[in-house]
């Protein structure tokens, strides 16, 4: 059967209706702090029991796609990442908004998220079985090297403020050590508090650091609203051909990085977005402009973020290996409808899986619709008076943290990390290294220790494989890159002296 005929069968009233529902729910949940695509799929999973498989998968797929995008809007406009994944959007997106280019920022993040999503889906459509085998090559050591890429990015993030940046990262690593030691089953540094027996939960910490601290900042600066004056709405969400060309390369590179990193189990969005951002910044003629509202930075991150969606489904559909938490939920959805992941999914059950993939592609189109046509509406949020915005952000943060597992302690965590985040902000200590270290520290530690157990003293046989050597080269290159100019300067000086 021709692949295109699967595309045609998609257009039934029921399919399109559930696609719309899924896409809308996804954007809303993605934008709300504390809610994410995971929440949406979790909630909708039982709702889709009674639907035909294709329709159910399309609805859940749409939640996944648009849920990964929804957080971009709030991250860019109010510096409040809806999910921890959209953290990187705040780096360049929010400065753009402060400059009064909020509409343009939405345009950039929408277009590149769309591009990233499409690249991921096309990879899924055409080369999934070939790409899938990639997942098997990653043992504990290779995963450690991949996670290290994310950690190395910290260095280039803090180059100008090295001491303060490393302070922030160290605090992040310390926080990541709290809780269960995955190898021995022993809980460390929990001070006898059962709520952090496993770990410091990611969501309350990130919400506190990034969203709740904004409340204090808004109060302290006595701002009437995020953007003041009529200039806030300057520019258009529709990018000019010149602006499009400007971000084209970063978008494409981010899309490919997102797709590839998505395939690697457990590497995830943080590594993908961080790597893409780092490459965009290091290779740019004017790296200083990054973090101060450069559309290229925003584009590279948004594209990588949504590229992960398609990528993470590649090993899931072909091998039954979920690349991240959300795709693990997706596996449950497939199983409910009697579709076991594996190669037979692409042969005997092709009808459903191609329906899903085309559904994902259509959901990407919804990103464009929501982003470009809704931008003027969303942008109004930056003009909402602080007296309204502050209670809303506060309520969302606290409720978001609480709804995660119904523990009052998590609300306290939001408050504590909100205060920490505020003071770090005031002291000029960057927040991004903290979160990178906090998110990746745990996996780096466990993967390294697991790798050392598996090596059993025979280091060479694990480290000297082609993939491992390739990853080490990438790690070292990422490490040296930010200092390349300094190193060159050093050599030049020596020559002059000689």
């Amino acid at each position, binding site marked *: 059967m021709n692949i295109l005929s699967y595309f045609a069968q998609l257009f039934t009233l029921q399919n399109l209706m559930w696609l719309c529902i899924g896409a809308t729910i996804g954007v*809303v*949940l993605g934008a*709300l702090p504390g*809610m994410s695509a995971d929440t949406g799929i*979790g*909630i909708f*999973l*039982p709702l889709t*029991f009674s639907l035909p498989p294709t329709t159910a998968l399309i609805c859940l797929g749409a939640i996944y796609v648009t849920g990964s995008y929804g957080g971009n809007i709030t991250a860019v406009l109010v510096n409040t990442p809806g999910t921890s994944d959209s953290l990187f959007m705040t780096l360049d997106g929010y400065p753009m908004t402060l400059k009064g280019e909020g509409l343009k920022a939405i345009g950039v993040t929408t277009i590149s998220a769309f591009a990233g999503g499409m690249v991921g889906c096309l990879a899924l459509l055409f080369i999934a079985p070939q790409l899938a085998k990639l997942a*098997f*090559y*990653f*043992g504990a050591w290779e995963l450690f090297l991949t996670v290290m890429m994310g950690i190395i990015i910290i260095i280039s993030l803090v180059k100008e403020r090295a001491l303060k940046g490393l302070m922030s990262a160290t605090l992040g690593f310390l926080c990541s050590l709290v809780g*269960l030691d*995955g*190898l021995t*089953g022993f*809980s460390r540094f929990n001070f006898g508090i*059962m*709520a952090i*027996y*496993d770990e410091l*939960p990611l969501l309350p910490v990130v919400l506190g650091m990034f969203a709740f601290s904004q409340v204090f900042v808004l109060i302290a600066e006595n701002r009437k609203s995020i953007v003041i004056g009529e200039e806030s709405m300057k520019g258009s969400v529709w990018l000019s051909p010149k602006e499009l060309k400007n971000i084209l390369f970063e978008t494409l590179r981010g899309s490919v990085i997102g797709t590839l990193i998505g395939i690697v*189990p*457990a590497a995830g969005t943080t590594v993908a977005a961080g790597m893409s951002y780092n490459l965009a910044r290091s290779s740019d003629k004017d790296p200083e402009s990054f973090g101060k509202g450069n559309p290229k930075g925003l584009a590279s991150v948004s594209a990588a973020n949504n590229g992960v969606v398609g990528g993470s489904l590649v090993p899931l559909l072909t*091998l*039954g*290996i*979920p690349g991240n938490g959300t795709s*693990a*939920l997706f*596996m*449950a959805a497939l*199983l*409910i*409808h*009697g579709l*076991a*992941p*594996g*190669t*037979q999914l692409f042969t005997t059950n092709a009808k459903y899986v191609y329906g899903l993939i085309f559904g994902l592609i259509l959901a990407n189109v919804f990103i464009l619709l929501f982003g470009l046509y809704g931008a003027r509406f969303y942008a*109004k949020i930056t*003009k*909402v*008076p602080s007296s*309204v915005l502050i209670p*809303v952000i506060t*309520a*969302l943060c606290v*409720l*978001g943290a*609480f709804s995660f*597992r*119904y*523990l009052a302690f998590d609300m306290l965590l939001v408050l504590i990390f909100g205060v920490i985040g505020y003071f770090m902000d005031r002291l000029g200590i960057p927040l991004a290294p903290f979160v990178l270290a906090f998110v990746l520290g745990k996996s780096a530690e466990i993967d390294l220790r*697991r790798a050392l*157990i*598996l090596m*059993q003293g025979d280091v060479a046989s694990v480290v000297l494989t082609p993939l491992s050597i390739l990853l080490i080269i990438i790690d070292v290159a990422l490490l040296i890159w930010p200092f390349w100019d300094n190193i060159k300067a050093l050599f030049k000086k020596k020559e002059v002296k000689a």
Partner: protein
Amino acid sequence: MKKLAALLLAAAMVLSLAACGTSNKNAGEESPAPSASPAAGTAESTWNVTRPEGLPADFPSKEITYIYPFGVGSMQDIYFRILAEKIKEKEGWKYGFVVKQQEGASGDIGWTNFIKSKPDGYTIGFAPTAQQITAIAYGKNYTADNMAYIFNMMSDPGAVGVSSKSQYATLQDLMNAAKENPGKITIGVTSVTGSEGLAVLQLEEASGAKFKVVPYDGETEVLTAVAGGHCDAYCLNVGDLATFLSEGSIKILAVGSEERSELVPDVPTYKECGYDVIQVNSRAIAAPAGTDEAIIKYLSDCFVAAANDPDVKAQCADMTIPYDTKDYKETTEMFMGYFKTYKDLWEKEPWA
């Protein structure tokens, strides 16, 4: 005017969040309104639940909370939701079950809240074998004698296996290799202190072998590492293996149940291979001790009837569920047995 619009928008945002938090997690609410219509006539032959004497006439007069202390989307979570929906529909309840997902501390946070909740029949919880292991090892009070078991959903036999490319063809091969090269053969588990780590410990004792135990974050991670050749063997549960078995990337050497598993009838048990070890992970539903027996009996009958319902069977046909439907009496007996076994083992040699 603009201010008002913004305010309304803000209120809507907060309200929508609150709505997401409460109503949508309700497992039963979305099911169609209970129908006492003639259409139900055909199913009457299988659905045979009577309300026992002493059951409050209005039970359930509110939603029944089901505390589930792990992440959503697993096999037992989905199976429960399907059963819950069926019961609400067939019994024509006005209120259904609400899944309250409360993760943390390897289940301890959810179970601690569960065991101290009011024994009025409106709070029930997920009660697997692992709960007893945790309770004994960490001195917690959610032991089997403190609970009123309602229904056993499934019993998943343990399984030991290797990559399909591996040189080991039988469990004896693997154990002998681990005996000759102590600490050289790696075996992946999800937790050293849980049922899997415990089973490896018991297998080592029974055979004199010595493995290098490598804990991973989840079943799929273990299987990916084994299939990719990074780890030599795995010790998991049969229910975890379906996808990888059908892909042909792993093989299974032996199962931990008393008798052979229906899911993999060709695979011998640990006992058949000469190792006197039992590893079974049962997953039950329980209420705190002191709950009215009429309520326990009624709920038990409902769950058993739902598990035997043809619609439910059809819905779960393609999920490899190791069914082990047991009513409240059989379930209590089984879990008291687990409790005693692990308690004796702990007194002999603490594992955590």
